[in-house]
């Protein structure tokens, strides 16, 4: 019986000690889409912008990276992946950060200088049985099982005459749905932004800049689903990789006080 009490005391103290050591706190990393210039000047308007991100990590001032532990209780996230849906934010040309999803997760209490994340769904979740998917992977408009996984990103544009779609996901996958071994073209993109404070900065996708670059090339009539070969698909991908992410200071202002990274 003594042994039982000793064990209990030990377990309780370990629990408290680890609690003290970690001092995790919850962060709400705000996101938004920068539309303004594009919205005012283009014949196109954006009809859809949704993307999955995973493996979000923040770097402290000693240079050490800390993984953000996603809060799985909110419907747009599970432990592995977060779905960022910007459709509500695109109703006006101005910034509407209150209508954009936040990335919610816990980190050790600290000061941070940089953020990095992957655009896409992690391999394991991307290729799990879609019939058993739970939120946010149960949204069938992000399913792409013709190719064996999910759409990592859907970006759709319309003008009076034309409509274009950029759907990004893994291609060239081998195996069968539920048991994919490997994809020749994974199409996951790692992004890093320096001088980013998770408390004060807003993670911003600079769609205006991205589309200014890519729409000058004629987009293909069909999506980038079959291969990434068309120049528009390649260009969009490369702009996404590096040059279309901004940090902006809160409070967000329509004039966009931004720092180009």
């Amino acid at each position: 019986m003594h042994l039982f009490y000793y064990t209990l005391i030990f377990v309780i103290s370990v629990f408290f000690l680890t609690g003290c050591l970690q001092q995790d706190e919850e962060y709400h990393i705000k996101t938004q889409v920068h539309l303004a210039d594009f919205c005012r000047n283009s014949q196109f308007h954006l009809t859809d912008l949704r993307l999955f991100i995973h493996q979000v990590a923040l770097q402290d001032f000693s240079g050490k990276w800390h993984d953000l532990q996603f809060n799985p209780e909110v419907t747009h996230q599970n432990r592995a992946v977060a779905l960022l849906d910007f459709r509500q934010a695109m109703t006006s040309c101005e910034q509407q950060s209150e209508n954009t999803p936040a990335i919610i997760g816990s980190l050790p209490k600290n000061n941070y200088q940089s953020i990095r994340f992957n655009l896409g769904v992690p391999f394991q979740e991307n290729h799990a049985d879609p019939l058993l998917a739970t939120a946010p992977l149960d949204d069938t408009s992000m399913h792409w099982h013709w190719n064996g996984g999910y759409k990592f990103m859907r970006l759709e544009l319309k003008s009076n005459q034309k409509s274009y779609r950029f759907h990004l996901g893994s291609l060239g996958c081998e195996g069968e749905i539920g048991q994919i071994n490997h994809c020749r073209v994974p199409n996951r993109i790692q992004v890093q932004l320096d001088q980013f404070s998770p408390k004060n900065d807003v993670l911003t996708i600079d769609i205006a800049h991205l589309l200014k670059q890519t729409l000058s090339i004629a987009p293909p009539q069909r999506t980038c689903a079959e291969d990434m070969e068309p120049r528009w698909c390649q260009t969009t991908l490369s702009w996404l990789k590096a040059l279309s992410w901004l940090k902006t200071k809160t409070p967000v202002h329509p004039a966009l006080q931004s720092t180009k990274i």
Partner: protein
Amino acid sequence: MRFITILLAFMSSLFVGGIAAYHVWQHQSFTWDLPKEIPPPPVPEDNPMHPAKVNLGRFLFYDTRLSQNQQISCATCHIQKLAFSEPRTLSQGLHGNLTPRNAMSLTNVAYNPNFTWANPLLTQLEHQMLIPLFGEEPPEMGMAGQEKELVERLQQVPIYQSYFSKAFPNEDNPISINNMIKAISSFQRTLLSFNSPYDQYLQGEHQAISDSAKRGMKLFFSEKTECFHCHGGFNFSDSSVHANSRTVPSEFHNNGLYNLDGKGSYPKDNRGLYTFTLNASDMGKFRAPTLRNIRVTAPYMHDGSIATLEDVLEHYVDGGRTILEGPNKGFGSANPYKSEFVVGLILTDEQKSDLLAFLDSLTDEDFLTNEQFTNPWPLLQEESASH
């Protein structure tokens, strides 16, 4: 103490009751309607066959609520009298938009090692169904992003409340997308066709097929025509999986329909296996479909580009297709990725008509008219009207 005992007794009686109910469900067992020499098809472990599921699946297969505009059902493109195929060259999505391909027959679909014309990733009917329901490139039934609305629609149909409960007992919310898909798959696995004149001939009814068909059969299985290499086995297809089979590798073939650039290219939307593997040598490779009921599944090929069975035979006589004009012009017979078995044939007119007579003997009239597979909704209305 007494309270706890009563509570425990109550809970265990519920538990036993639940088990008993499940036991009854399990013992309304499903039996395959198959000739004894045909092995049953494989069934996923998490979706065992059950009569209640098959019945529910039949209602869902014919239900237009499954499309966004409630205009089309599975049966719109898979028509029973045409062996669950359709006469259109290319199938239409819900907005009248054309898909790139011709709807495949569902004859003996349960034995396919993979689904659609060339997708190696789709090896279960349950997964294949996600494409027509939720696919967007192009939309077919157009339900992408509307899975919640679909469940709500189904919940509002009174018979589904009881049919889903019967098919999926002991579930709190049996009306779900996953269960809908399981039920439709179960129905599709019952679409079995093994009672053609050819089958009757194999059973010893020597007069079931004509002398011409018998000569055609010999030709079909000869090295002269090579037909059986790609259309072999009990299902006259590439490869079949059944309950006792090992995993069967999927096979795909280029039969020389196109050769756009002299290097083997196929039209952009229809590159076959290449789309998935991105290997150049997989250009234009498609699945060889079953030849059972082939006479009624016109037009032919993945893109419906050959109108009649006679023309299909001529295609193989020529060893590939020559297109002289237009965007698809090229010498298909010189496609570098063409199957080694498509080399051209020398056949007399009589031999051609014998081969066609043999193919005709694979038409199973019982399958095309089987009342187990017809649209059940009008019957339901008649039944309720008569009460």
